[in-house]
């Protein structure tokens, strides 16, 4: 036994994962299933081929922001324009530091003019909450971390709605893309949004831990297939969705990460705005591009990327896509974003690659 023991958190569904032969691994401070008995490829196929995949993503954090200044506060701490949200709408956004670098990417749920709900990344939870609470000074808001009480499930795939509907008191057909509703799940209050991280139609379901096992079991009963972290990462990478610690971090701004579409410079002041404006006019230091391997092999995170034979950057996420082959996201020098011959160094050899359009495979989200 080692001298240092790291205590990993378990979600309310830990025993359920183990019962399904989930291979548990440390992830963002939790023990989470990287795959179940089916294996990553079959789990991936289930989601892409019309079934309903069920994911325990309870490691994600939730923060409730309420008070008379909730809108003004969120306009100041997040990058997107919160004033554009209507009640029941979800918005992809980010928290930046004063240097314009990412603290996290988040989703903002508008419950009412005085109440919002934020979903944040697991690994960034304590950092985010400390930041959000520190910046709340001077605003009439309360910022409450509800992560420990909340189970978050994602149901993704063409059959997601059919699997979830029987549990709810609300017609899911009435919830559009990036919309949500406060619902009763088996009589208990929860939130359901038509959102996800896979490129398929589907939902994210926030419920209290006390009913997590019952809801999980009911969804399995309705045909949902449990999906681990490995397949989840394949599905999100194929869509080109950014993941904190990979495409975005406290070393890049939205200018580099191609996330200016969630960074509204015309909405008034917000944390990091001046730095982003400066970076925008100076030009990005690197640019995120999508690449596809032409030669054989699998591009992986941190593999060097060269342009015209000279080192230009590195891969941030890379994988074997059953539908698209070897695909990756990479940062390269700005002058190489659109031209020059690409290659990826795999075990000392240069393997030819080409620029690709995102998503790598067709998205089936319901717009």
């Amino acid at each position, binding site marked *: 036994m080692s001298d240092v023991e790291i205590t990993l958190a378990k979600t309310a569904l830990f025993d359920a994962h183990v019962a399904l032969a989930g*291979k548990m691994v440390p992830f963002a401070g939790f023990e989470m299933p*990287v795959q179940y008995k089916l294996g990553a*490829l079959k789990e991936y196929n289930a989601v892409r081929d019309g079934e309903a995949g069920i994911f325990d993503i309870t490691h994600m954090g939730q923060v409730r922001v309420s008070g008379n200044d909730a809108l003004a506060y969120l306009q100041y701490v997040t990058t997107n324009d919160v004033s554009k949200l209507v009640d029941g709408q979800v918005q992809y956004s980010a928290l930046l530091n004063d240097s314009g670098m990412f603290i996290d990417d988040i989703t903002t749920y508008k419950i009412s003019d005085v109440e919002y709900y934020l979903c944040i990344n697991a690994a960034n939870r304590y950092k985010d909450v400390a930041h959000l609470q520190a910046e709340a000074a001077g605003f009439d808001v309360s910022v409450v971390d509800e992560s420990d009480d909340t189970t978050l499930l994602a149901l993704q795939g063409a059959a997601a709605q059919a699997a979830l509907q029987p549990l709810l008191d609300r017609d899911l057909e009435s919830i559009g893309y990036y919309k949500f509703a406060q619902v009763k799940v088996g009589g208990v209050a929860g939130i359901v949004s038509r959102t996800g991280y896979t490129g398929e139609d589907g939902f994210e379901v926030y419920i209290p831990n006390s009913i997590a096992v019952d809801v999980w079991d009911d969804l399995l009963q309705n045909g949902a297939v449990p999906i681990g972290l490995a397949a989840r990462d394949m599905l999100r990478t194929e869509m080109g969705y950014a993941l904190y610690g990979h495409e975005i971090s406290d070393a890049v701004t939205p200018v580099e990460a191609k996330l200016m579409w969630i960074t509204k410079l015309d909405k008034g002041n917000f944390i990091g705005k001046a730095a982003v404006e400066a970076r925008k006019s100076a030009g990005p230091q690197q640019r995120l591009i999508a690449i596809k391997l032409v030669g054989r092999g699998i591009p992986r995170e941190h593999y060097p990327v060269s342009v015209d034979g000279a080192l230009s950057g590195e891969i941030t996420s890379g994988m*074997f896509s059953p539908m698209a082959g070897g695909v990756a996201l990479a940062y390269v020098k700005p002058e190489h974003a659109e031209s020059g011959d690409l290659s990826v160094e795999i075990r000392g050899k240069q393997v030819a690659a080409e620029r690709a359009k995102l998503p790598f495979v067709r998205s089936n989200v319901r717009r």
Partner: protein
Amino acid sequence: MTIPANIKYTKDHEWVRIDGDIATFGITDHAQEALGDIVFVELPEVGRTIDAGEAYAVVESVKAVSDVYAPIAGEVVEVNEGLEGEPEKVNTDAFGGGWIAKVKVSGDGSVELMSDDEYTTFLEE
């Protein structure tokens, strides 16, 4: 999990079948199960001389990249090109269609080899 009787095993979970002066290499059922779905195999070049214990191939699963080590020294005389199109054979038929390379044994040594019984005990330890 299967552990065939007529072949030898290494502590790194490779297997070797010796037939005259030709040795066939692969990874064990235990290894493929631990790795998960294999999506790519990098084969050695025919004609390459490899030492016992040298990394001669690479198998990649969805999440991991793993070196495969040679149980016995020799010269690569044939590789399983079928794995280029069907790497999953390493998962589905680890001791048969999932073989990786055939080597002409040079007599320059081997790593410690175990019988099926010894490997079974090794896995239980």
